[in-house]
């Protein structure tokens, strides 16, 4: 039984509105646009199967994001990411030379997985610490520690490009 058209329309809208935000954040986390796209598409496919139920949730996109992030985390565990980050940097097709961006990308790639995930979810997805903790199945204290350490590491790279002590 195909979902009623209203439900399908609802799904279409969610897909159109949420695919890029979710996949974009995942691309920053994974260091690969293709991987992010694949994972997000898989999450939306899973969502479609249950959309009649998910669409009634308070935050259907949140369900998709959660599934996508879980898939991404699983994927990252299977692959060494630093390598792919480095590979992704070389042919820069994005918006001309961007030394700060490349530097940040390298810095992100060097972060432990937990820290990178927390940083992307916090600064990009704008999730509160409690939600990140739930998503990562960690305690809030642990998430705060990840964020703190990641910030120290990334701040170093951010300030490197700027001459701020005159």
């Amino acid at each position, binding site marked *: 039984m195909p979902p009623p058209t209203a439900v399908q329309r609802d799904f279409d809208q969610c897909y159109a509105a949420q695919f890029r935000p979710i996949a974009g954040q995942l*691309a920053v986390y994974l260091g690969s646009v293709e991987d992010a796209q694949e994972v997000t598409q898989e999450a939306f496919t899973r969502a479609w199967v249950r959309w009649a139920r998910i669409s009634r949730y308070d935050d259907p996109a949140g369900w998709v994001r959660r599934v996508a992030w879980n898939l991404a985390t699983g994927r990252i565990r299977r692959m060494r990411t630093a390598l792919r980050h480095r590979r992704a940097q070389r042919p820069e097709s994005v918006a001309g030379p961007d030394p700060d961006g490349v530097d940040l990308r390298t810095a992100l790639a060097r972060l432990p997985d937990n820290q990178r995930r927390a940083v992307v979810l916090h600064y990009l997805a704008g999730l509160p610490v409690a939600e990140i903790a739930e998503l990562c199945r960690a305690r809030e204290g642990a998430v705060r520690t990840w964020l703190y350490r990641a910030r120290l590491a990334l701040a170093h790279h951010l300030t490197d490009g700027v001459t701020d*002590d005159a």
Partner: protein
Amino acid sequence: MMPEPDDRLDERLRAALGDLDDAARRQLRPTDVRTVSAAGRRRRTVLAAGTTAFVLLVASGLFSVWFVGPWRAERSAAPGCRPTTATAFLRGDVTAEQRERIGAVLRASPEVSAVHFESRADAYENFKQLYADAPELVDSVRPDTLPESWRFTLACTGDIGAMRQRLALPGVDDVVCACDPRRSPGRR
């Protein structure tokens, strides 16, 4: 050298990550939503088939529990009733009459489900088999060293106490049960 204020750092971090995010979004080529829906539809068909199979499996499992369960429970009605083997070793000076009387008591006991006599020669043969991997041990034992015994099986381990009392007869040296925690007779 001024330490950078925290919120300024947060801001810059957010902005820098946002740039990365924007770059990634520009590169994204989302598949048409109809492709995703079609994939979902196929998935649901597979899921439905899988669920049906699962439900059937669970149902048949429950069926067997409901219908076989009571029957099984009936067979092991007495809790903690596990069969065990035991041995009544006879004294070296046991008389033929004592030996027969002990056998008769065992055969008359309702708790005992099987009885047989083991002569010195049988015991020696069993001993040799049991310790085939330790020839020096076998060599140290002569055919007439080992005692005669009555070997019997109890349907319920719990009855061994009653059997010990009943076997407190002239000619019995010791009653040893496989269920005894520390020493156990050679298993048959």
